[in-house]
């Protein structure tokens, strides 16, 4: 796909919504198209995080090796979402396995390319960080809600009069 076409399809991804043309161009210059077949891993725990993904279709499960508890699937993410920020934060290694539950179409963004752009253009860098903060905040909120285990009873009150 030509860069021009790529930026057009990239624009449809919610991560880029309302982004100015200049920034879209910059981001596109670090992006490429990628496909993972069902059952493949986008990345594995412990590997160097050199890319992140903007998912276009298909679903990805995030898994943690739980030792004696086996592989624990903690979350699934899908089309329109952002996968991975370990490239941004030391020690730049993945903390999860990312498993393709279905065939996955995504944009892969090259991290070293993007970091370079961010460092040369602070406005672009700020824009990227702002958008990633939002992703992080939403993910954190969802994790908190998951942690609350809201469908369980707040107190073990079996035997009470209900």
């Amino acid at each position, binding site marked *: 796909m030509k860069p021009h076409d790529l930026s057009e399809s990239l624009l449809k991804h*919610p991560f880029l919504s309302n982004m100015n043309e200049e920034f879209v161009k910059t981001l596109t210059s670090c992006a490429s198209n990628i496909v993972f077949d069902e059952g493949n891993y986008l990345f594995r725990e412990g590997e160097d995080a050199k890319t992140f993904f903007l998912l276009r279709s298909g*679903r990805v*499960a995030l*898994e943690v090796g739980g030792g004696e508890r*086996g*592989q*624990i*699937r*903690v*979350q*699934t*993410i*899908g*089309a*329109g*979402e952002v996968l991975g920020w370990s490239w941004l934060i030391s020690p730049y290694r993945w903390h999860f396995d990312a498993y393709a*539950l279905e065939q996955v179409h995504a944009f892969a963004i090259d991290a070293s390319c993007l970091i370079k752009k961010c460092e040369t253009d602070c406005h672009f860098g700020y824009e990227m960080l702002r958008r990633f903060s939002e992703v992080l905040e939403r993910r954190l*909120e*969802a994790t908190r*809600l*998951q942690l*609350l*285990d*809201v*469908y*369980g*009873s707040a107190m073990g*009150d*079996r*035997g*009470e*009069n*209900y």
Partner: protein
Amino acid sequence: MLETPVLDEIKSPNSMAPLPATIRRIIWETDDTYTLLIDAPRLDGKEFPFRPGQFNMVYAFGIGESAISISSDPSKSNLLAHTIHRVGTVTSALSKLKRGDMIGLRGPFGTAWPIEEAVGKDVCIAAGGIGLAPLRPVIYTLIRRRSEFGRIIILYGARSPLDLLYRVELEQWSKVPNTEVITTVDRGDSSWKGHIGVVTGLFSYVKLDTPSTIAMVCGPEVMMKYTFEELERRGVSQEHIFISMERNMKCGVGLCGHCQFGPKFICKDGPVFRLPQIRHLIEKKEI
């Protein structure tokens, strides 16, 4: 000036006496949640009409009562369903009943989901855990009158795959034209192929036509809070968001005082509220 009610003119429906009703079947939906199918009692010689979202006080003989929403199809008023989470003495006693056994019912009480207001609009139903039960009568109604509504979006979250209610029906509903059903669980394993994550995360996968969407939300209070915030973030107006509340209830008819939520009685002013009616209270602690 205080007007004294004209006491001699006051008559009210007999609300305190449970009507005997026969259990036709018990369906176990999950490990701890079951549905009672009940031959509807006659109410003053008439059928037992209810509106989606209303509840009954369900009586286990000699044990006590519990406020349980009605989860059956309102067009089939001869057969009532109550989906019940087994948590205490009343709900345990009810869970042990068999076909042909009797329970008592008082109701139907409370406010209903805004079906008529949703005509011509998209309907987004967001449910968590047993919160799908009071919304099931809505889903039956929307499907029966399918052409009167726009898209139907059903987002449903539960603790684990085995805790999902109405699994067969969820599958059937997803096949109804212009209807999306997305389920998610807080805890999955590698055998679960669906979504893992909280119900609010599912909004990433649907594009709401916000000016014409009516949202109906039911689940634990925390889940509802996160959900209506997410809906608002996506541009759904507060006026178009409806939630169903739960509180302790003893009488079900606004007389015992238990279910008060600020100035609202959940039993008679609710359980279904338009969000702006109670939003200022939900955000306060221990109201």
